[in-house]
């Protein structure tokens, strides 16, 4: 620090630019490295995405303006409907189950327990563990005929293996399997957010409730739940958005070497990917992307409203 102090401030002022301009230029020089990359590789594609939704283009021939015809096509496209429907079903399955599990575990781990740190680590780790690897194990464990899950069920219930659910391989059980997997993989993350929320609850509220004769359930119902409302709201929004964006979990649980999903398991992002990179129908893919964008935007706007309400 010493060396810097020897610079005479007057030499800086002597420069031809005004002090204000200099300040601004320095500020821009701080922003520039990030902003140039960000503008070029994020902002430009975002704008491009909106344009693409209204043109027909295969990447080779000239673009052709098509107006809203892609959106009319979406309206009548049963494959797209299937993908949208599956995404919604998945979201409706994952969101409440994850919230209940995350909150339950957070409340349990918020007490003084033996091996608490170890358990927190165990619950959180699947969130950072490589998806491809853990999905591979799940597929082996839930393998319809050979897997230990069905063999165990068979041993316990006596139901013949052929009559047991075929999990990821069964169109009726696929959604259940992927919801279960997602909850298993991600609940630790939301548990940590809930744990932080619980740390923020004033302990005096519990003492006051206990003095008033409230039992454990009443304390949970009337202190914990309302006090955690902002956290729950945040978790809810993030969970919905992340469920809308799902792709990699479905590919790794359901798809074979060709990376294709069927009608029981196709989701929105898969539909974007497939339409663009397999059918080379960039315009139509972008129209699906706009639908995804609007869904996420809707949730985000609700989130902004909620954050105002909770004063965050």
């Amino acid at each position: 620090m010493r060396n810097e102090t020897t610079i005479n401030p007057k030499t800086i002022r002597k420069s031809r630019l005004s002090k204000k301009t200099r300040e601004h230029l320095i500020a821009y020089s701080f922003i520039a490295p990030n902003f140039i990359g960000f503008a070029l590789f994020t902002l430009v594609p975002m704008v491009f995405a909106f344009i693409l939704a209204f043109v027909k283009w295969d990447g080779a021939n000239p673009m052709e303006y098509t107006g809203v015809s892609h959106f009319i096509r979406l309206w009548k496209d049963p494959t797209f409907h299937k993908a949208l429907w599956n995404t919604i079903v998945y979201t409706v399955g994952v969101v409440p189950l994850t919230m209940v599990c995350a909150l339950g575990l957070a409340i349990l781990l918020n007490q003084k327990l033996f091996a608490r740190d170890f358990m927190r680590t165990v619950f959180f780790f699947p969130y950072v563990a490589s998806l491809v690897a853990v999905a591979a194990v799940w597929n082996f464990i839930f393998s319809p005929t050979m897997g230990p899950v069905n063999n165990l069920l068979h041993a316990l219930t006596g139901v013949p293996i052929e009559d047991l659910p075929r999990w990821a391989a069964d169109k009726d059980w696929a959604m259940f399997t992927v919801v279960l997997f997602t909850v298993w993989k991600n609940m630790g993350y939301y548990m940590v957010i809930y744990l932080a929320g619980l740390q923020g609850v004033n302990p005096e509220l519990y003492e006051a409730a206990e003095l008033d004769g409230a039992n454990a359930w009443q304390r949970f119902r009337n202190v914990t739940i309302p006090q955690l409302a902002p956290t729950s709201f945040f978790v809810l929004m993030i969970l919905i958005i992340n469920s809308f964006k799902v792709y990699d979990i479905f590919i790794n649980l359901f798809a074979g070497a060709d990376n294709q999903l069927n009608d029981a398991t196709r989701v929105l992002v898969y539909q974007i990917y497939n339409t663009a990179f397999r059918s080379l129908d960039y315009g139509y893919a972008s129209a699906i992307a706009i639908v995804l964008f609007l869904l996420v935007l809707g949730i985000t706007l609700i989130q902004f409203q909620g954050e105002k309400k909770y004063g965050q």
Partner: protein
Amino acid sequence: MVGTNKGVKIGVKVLAYLILFVVVLCMLVPYLWMLSSSLKLNKDVFTFPMQWIPESPRWSNYKEIWTRIPLGTFIYNTAKLSVIVTALQILTSSFAAYAFSKLNFTGKHALFLGYIATIAIPWQAYMVPQFIMMRSMGLNNTHLAIILLQAFSAFGVFLMRQFYQSIPDELCEAARIDGLSEYGIWARIMVPLSKPALSTLTIFTFVSTWNDFLGPMIYLTKTELKTIQIGLRMFISQYSAEYGLIMAASVISIIPVLIVFLVLQKNFVQGVASTGIKG
């Protein structure tokens, strides 16, 4: 704490431990199964009842996997991408965040609002035009494409700026009076003070780049360029009956993240908690 219903309290505690024990088991069994199967012959992987500790562990699975697929190349590619992306992300984010937090310039608020607004736009919504652009620049099947699309995130700028807001402006003022340049203030005051935020950003970026799936899947189709995730996926779909080898490769792919996670767990959990709450 009133001592009247002590029996109930003990009961509750026992129940809590019981539930937690079952959940811990559910969380751990897949890893244990992975580890156990990685040391078995293919024909022994699915024997029922399960033999948790193989009688004659097949360590050769861990040797063979390196020659069956270019696992070393995959790991090198992933490590290279993760390190470069994380370094660029840290550098450019904290640099930009300093200007947003401590300097004045025309258009500051509009620009920052623009940054925040784009965080809400899902990458999946513009990944297609992004790919078309990169391809027209000749960047398809290059690591540079992955670096460019991940290194300049709005989220990083937002995270660092939130942290810098908590550092008093007076500190910068004092340094300016002492004649320190803005770059000097950033390097000697802001960076050392923001270690917690920097470590959070480092861990998040590193792990998400390491585990990224869709990005490499779109851009990297040549085997020698693949990352561990898509490389492993390629192996699984090509040799779906090589159970032992698949599990061995899976164990190897998890170990680096496990080490990073165990070493930096504290920052990780704090990072999730703080960014989670602040949004």
